[in-house]
């Protein structure tokens, strides 16, 4: 049986799904929800697309399941206010009761699933549509409430102000989306939402005219079929062009736009204007080292591992990852659960060991660890939690005293090569070639076969490393002092490094070293670094040859 305590933040569809599955897997789960009710945004919806089934059905099943599980602790009106890692593998989270300001307490958990959802974009910021100032300009979320018994019209789809039946309704797509003044991205769900709203508007109001102002209708996958169905069944008027203005005249909303397909100006009067607004990222307490995209979402390591964040033991699910619909939210919650179970279950990978005799607890390893797996313990020495470590070795690359090393890595290997060079066992030009084992080393192996070499360049000694960021500058120094002619580093491209910062960290360290070499009157070109992808075999060969030629031209190492 698995053991562990997981905090799920957010009681929306993603959070409930995650809590339910984790609970059924036997884990201890704490589910916190800021508001006073579960269900999140989904609880305010009338129907899901494409089957037009009520969201309450699925929600009820989840909530019932969860309340039947004694190991899932559901805490409403509870907010996450802080996340800290004080000991390896364990997160200390601060929770606050939103009813009582002072009621703050801490919990220790093994993992956190961030299912905080997203916020809707504030439509009143789009001045030309008059949201907030004109009557009957509403967002698509508010449109959903017109159909709900607990909504402002008691579930009858009528004019929200006058109570009269609706005759003409306009939908404005991309309200604030794909617009550099508002949200530069596409939220991805709004087109399908408008289609489903057209469907139940026609179904419940019968004789009604619906217009859609759009830029592009984006309905990927099976949603395209749904789009065709709505278009052919209900024949809404599609105008390709976003309105320039929405005005209120004589009890009607006048929408003006240019139809970019015909080039003609279009004007229509409507009872109701629905703005399909996008999503903005959630507001969360600062979690040290957790990377966000430029908009504030947590997209993870796309495309290979979208729920994986660069803090081991934290996963994102639902709209916290990126704007998405219910189907994708559930899917991402399930994948976050899978990741969480794997982490609790897996055998720890190889993790670095600390030589406490040499360590002066400078803390650089803890600062540079991309996963937060290495932290300074109570005695001041770094501690690595095997379950959090992903064996990138970036700590060993940065350690000034070379006292933290992955098993089988370290200066010893380099010293052996240097000894071979000094005893004349390596032909000229002698090059130490570090290869990232994600990309560059497989490319090298393809080039040379197992244990092979490049013809004419037998002096190239390959050394695979887990990440180019794990190469310690002292290794390079040792090689140069020991008389090797040059050092080459083949890592990943900076924005493709699996461990995020490995390549750029190596870049900074190399830059500093090159400057020092320049002052020492040693050609800085004796250190060469390049970005290699797994299929760059020919380019790798070319670059090694070019570097070899350059070294021959420069002559033997000045340390010889």
């Amino acid at each position, binding site marked *: 049986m698995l053991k562990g305590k997981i905090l799920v933040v957010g009681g929306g569809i993603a959070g409930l799904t995650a809590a339910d599955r984790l609970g059924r897997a036997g884990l201890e789960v704490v589910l916190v929800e800021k508001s006073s009710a579960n269900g999140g945004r989904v609880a305010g919806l009338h129907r899901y697309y494409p089957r037009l089934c009520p969201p309450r059905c699925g929600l009820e099943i989840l909530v019932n399941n969860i309340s039947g599980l004694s190991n899932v602790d559901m805490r409403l009106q509870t907010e996450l206010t802080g996340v800290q890692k004080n000991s390896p593998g364990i997160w200390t989270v601060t929770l606050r009761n939103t009813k009582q300001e002072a009621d703050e307490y801490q919990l220790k958990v093994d993992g956190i699933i961030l299912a905080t959802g997203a916020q809707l974009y504030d439509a009143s910021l789009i001045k030309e549509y008059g949201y907030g100032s004109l009557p009957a300009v509403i967002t698509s979320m508010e449109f959903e409430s017109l159909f709900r018994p607990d909504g402002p019209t008691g579930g009858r789809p009528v004019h929200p102000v006058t109570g009269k039946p609706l005759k003409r309704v306009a939908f404005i797509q991309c309200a604030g989306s794909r617009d550099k003044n508002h949200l530069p991205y596409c939220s991805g769900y709004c087109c399908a939402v408008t289609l489903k709203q057209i469907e139940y508007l026609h179904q419940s109001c019968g004789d009604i005219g619906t217009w859609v102002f759009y830029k592009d209708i984006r309905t990927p996958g099976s949603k395209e079929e749904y789009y065709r169905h709505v278009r052919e069944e209900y024949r809404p008027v599609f105008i390709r062009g976003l309105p320039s203005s929405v005005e209120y005249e004589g009890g009607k909303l006048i929408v003006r736009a240019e139809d970019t397909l015909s080039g003609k100006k279009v004007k229509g009067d409507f009872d109701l204007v629905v703005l399909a607004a996008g999503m903005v990222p959630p507001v969360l307490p600062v979690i040290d080292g957790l990377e966000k995209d430029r908009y504030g979402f947590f997209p993870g390591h796309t495309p290979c591992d979208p729920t994986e964040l660069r803090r081991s033991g934290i996963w994102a699910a639902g709209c916290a990852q990126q704007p998405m619909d219910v189907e994708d939210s559930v899917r991402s919650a399930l994948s976050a659960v899978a990741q969480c179970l794997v982490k609790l279950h897996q055998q720890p990978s190889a993790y670095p060991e600390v030589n406490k005799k040499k360590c*002066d607890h*400078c*803390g*650089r390893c803890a*600062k*540079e660890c991309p996963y937060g797996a290495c932290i300074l313990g109570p005695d001041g020495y770094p501690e690595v939690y095997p379950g959090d470590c992903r064996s990138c070795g970036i700590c060993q690359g*940065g350690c*000034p005293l*070379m006292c933290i090393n992955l098993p089988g890595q370290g*200066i010893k290997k*380099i*010293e052996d090569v*240097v000894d071979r060079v000094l005893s004349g066992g390596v032909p000229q030009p002698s090059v130490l070639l570090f290869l990232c084992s994600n990309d560059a080393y497989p490319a090298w192996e393809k080039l040379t076969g197992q244990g092979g070499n490049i013809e004419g360049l037998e002096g190239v000694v390959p050394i695979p490393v887990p990440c180019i960021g794990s190469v310690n*500058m*002292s*290794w390079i*120094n*040792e*090689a*140069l*002092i*020991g008389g090797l002619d040059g050092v080459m580093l083949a890592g990943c491209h900076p924005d493709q490094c699996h461990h995020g910062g490995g390549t750029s960290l190596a870049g900074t*360290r190399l830059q*500093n*070293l090159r*400057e*020092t*070499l320049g*002052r*020492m*009157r*040693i050609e800085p070109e004796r250190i060469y670094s390049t970005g290699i992808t797994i299929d760059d075999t020919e380019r790798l060969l070319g670059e090694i040859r070019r570097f070899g030629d350059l070294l021959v031209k420069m002559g033997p190492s*000045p*340390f010889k």
Partner: protein
Amino acid sequence: MPPKVDLKKCDGCKGENEPLCVSICPGDLLFLNEESVRAVCRSPRDCWDCMSCVKACPQGAIETKLPYQLGYYPAKLIPLMGGKRVSWTCIGQDGKVERFTYKNRN
């Protein structure tokens, strides 16, 4: 002559309480400027030119100028730390370069 810290290269050992240069200096001359998070020499005249800080700095951010008795500008003495070995590059005022490699006793 006192250590000169390259403010672009020095990263204050990433905000550590006592960076390596501070803890190694036998004269306790270096300290961390809290504001700029860079190492600073508090009393340049008291430096004995032991160059421990230059050897310890993981960023290669510290340089010392040779005392005038040994060589005028542009004379330089620069260490490079390997594992088993440490090398010294001596550049005389006439531009003559000499290199020495020793066993590292650390």
